[in-house]
């Protein structure tokens, strides 16, 4: 039973991770609290649904399309809106991103209506039963896919020139500029990559989750706690925090009254904050 709970939690958590890694990257590089992140996820899910509806592509095969679309979408949003929003103060930035999210939700709602949608493919309904552990194939794929995507991102950040420039911008903007990094380009890139992450997460979720205009809010709250828990701006931290939250939610929700599982995440956050997250994550 415990193993089943752990695996379920881990798979859910890895999707939280992927969403949070994107959010954390945007926050780290641009110092921007993006309240539209959940709605970007929602957009990706509708995009994936659209590919299924119009092109007949399963969410898995449309995954690259959605990721690339979201990458471009991120860059466009940065160029058109966030670049200007960044020039204002923190509160105005938050409200600005929130407004973008609301606008997106409004547009999607007017196109698709207020209806719960799902994509039903042979994959989305398949289950895998391994030694009394029951998993849905879609969830398994989402979990593994999220881990692979995060791993690739980490490698890119660590071992490529562009990646190192991104990390440098995240750590110290002035120093990065002095070293010849074009921070404006890095901002744009972080938005692109951040949105691509959420695009992947959205496409992976579409296989087994319902699609609804306000579906993003379910995930964005958790994403923010994940980013905070992982130490703001830390990719590795966000990744581990996502997994931890997934496990706490499922395992804790089982052994304790389920209605408090969102509260448990809050408790986890408080405990880790008091115990200094940076040190904890560096120790891992």
């Amino acid at each position: 039973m415990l193993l089943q709970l752990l695996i379920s939690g881990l798979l859910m958590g890895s999707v939280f991770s992927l969403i949070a890694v994107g959010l954390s990257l945007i926050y780290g590089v641009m110092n921007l609290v993006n309240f539209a992140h959940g709605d970007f996820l929602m957009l990706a899910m509708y995009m994936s649904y659209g590919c299924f509806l119009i092109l007949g592509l399963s969410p898995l095969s449309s995954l690259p399309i959605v990721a690339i679309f979201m990458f471009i979408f991120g860059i466009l949003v940065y160029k058109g809106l966030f670049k200007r929003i960044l020039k204002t103060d923190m509160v105005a930035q938050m409200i600005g991103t929130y407004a973008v999210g609301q606008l997106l939700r409004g547009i999607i709602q007017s196109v698709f209506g207020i209806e719960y949608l799902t994509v039903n493919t042979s994959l989305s309904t398949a289950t895998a039963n391994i030694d009394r552990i029951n998993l849905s194939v879609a969830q398994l794929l989402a979990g593994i896919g999220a881990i692979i995507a995060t791993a690739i991102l980490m490698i890119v950040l660590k071992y490529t020139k562009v990646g190192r420039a991104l990390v440098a911008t995240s750590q110290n903007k002035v120093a990065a500029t002095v070293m010849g990094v074009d921070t404006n380009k890095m901002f744009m890139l972080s938005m692109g990559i951040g949105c691509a992450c959420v695009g992947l997460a959205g496409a992976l979720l579409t296989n087994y989750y319902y699609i609804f205009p306000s579906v993003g809010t379910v995930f964005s709250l958790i994403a923010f706690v994940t980013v905070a828990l992982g130490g703001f701006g830390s990719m590795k931290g966000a990744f581990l925090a996502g997994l931890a939250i997934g496990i706490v939610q499922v395992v804790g929700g089982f052994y304790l009254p389920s209605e408090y599982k969102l509260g448990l995440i809050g408790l986890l956050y408080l405990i880790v904050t008091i115990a200094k997250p940076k040190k904890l994550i560096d120790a891992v």
Partner: protein
Amino acid sequence: MYFKKNFKKVVSLLIGLFMLVNLTACSSSKNSTEKISEVKIGAILPLTGPASTTGKTAKDGMDLAVDIINGKYDDINLPFAKEEGLPGLGGAKLKIVYSDTQGAPEKAQTIMEKLVNDEKVAAVEGAYHSSVVAAAAIVAERYGVPFVSGDATSPALTQKGYKWFFRTCPDDTMIADGFYKFMADMNTKYSANIKNIDLIAENTLWGTDSSKIEKTLASNYNYNVKNVIPYDSKASEFSSEIMKVKADAPDAVIHSSYVADSIMMIKQYKQMDYAPVIFGNGGGFVDPSFIKTLGKDSEYLITRTCYNNDVALNADTIAKIEKLFFDKYGYNMVETSARDFENTLILADAINRAKSVDPNAIRQALVETNIPKSDLIVSYEGVKFNDKQQNELASVLVVQIQNGKYTTVWPWDRAKTEVEWPIPTWSKR
């Protein structure tokens, strides 16, 4: 000095006006034989805000009832269909004045006072949210105006002993009772062997109250509630809740869930390859998007409702009403529409028998209401108010999703078809 003189004039004028108003009010209630051409009733509903889609379905039901009452429908076998207007009032037409509650109890007082004082409505109906009804019923009590609700289910509303409040639909206790009767019938007819049950309920007012009532009533039927699982419907996933049910392995599990959470939970039952007997306490299970979203995975699920379009009783009338409804609004009649359609007809029946718009006469007529089930499109066994002014004949239908449709399976005499039983495992579907 000048002002003082004027002031006196104004005061005396006001007093005069006041007396005149009183005089006309007296005369209108005394002279009930005077011809009335229009009877105004008020309807308070959540027409904007989060429950606005539900409010709209309720309003559409009421509007169609007004069409039936005011128009002439020779082929429909319902009270008032075959003649225009209310015969008891010389063919007077019924008019509903709508007021938006936004689902907010604090709005109830103002809009009720407006309906009573400005619109001079003869009676009021609505308001879907039990909390709003509770607030509005106090105002109805103060002004002495009949308030008849066909869509709010909190048992407390009729337990206060109000003089002016009536309810035509079943309350949550009667709904739970209906469910347990169905389960007992299943044990007899299908040897379903349902004894141990789990209750899984969202943790706001509705779910909490429903599960409390279900738990209390269970002992009357010798059911054993193994576990009550309250949950937060805003959570992203529900594997821990489903795992709890799975660990309990109850004979049946009753869900009080909203839409998104019920959809997600059914998906997760499947993921866990766990196929218990699932009963929905309405809510998300009867939402128009439920079957559409879950597709094949919604098959075999069982839920309760007050209206379904396939019942054998009055099938012909129901089909005609369904068609009128669809032609007018472009969607199929749902439970809330049907309950409020019926509620409007029940209220009209009382006004018609009162032969007057005098509140006391209408109240008396409501008390004497006795409508047989052959005059109804909803599942009730008839309409008759008990001393708490609750329709004691209100009851529910149990429907099972079969071939992508809600199919009535209980009570046996209204059933369209047999219950698909036993519920197959996921791999055999």
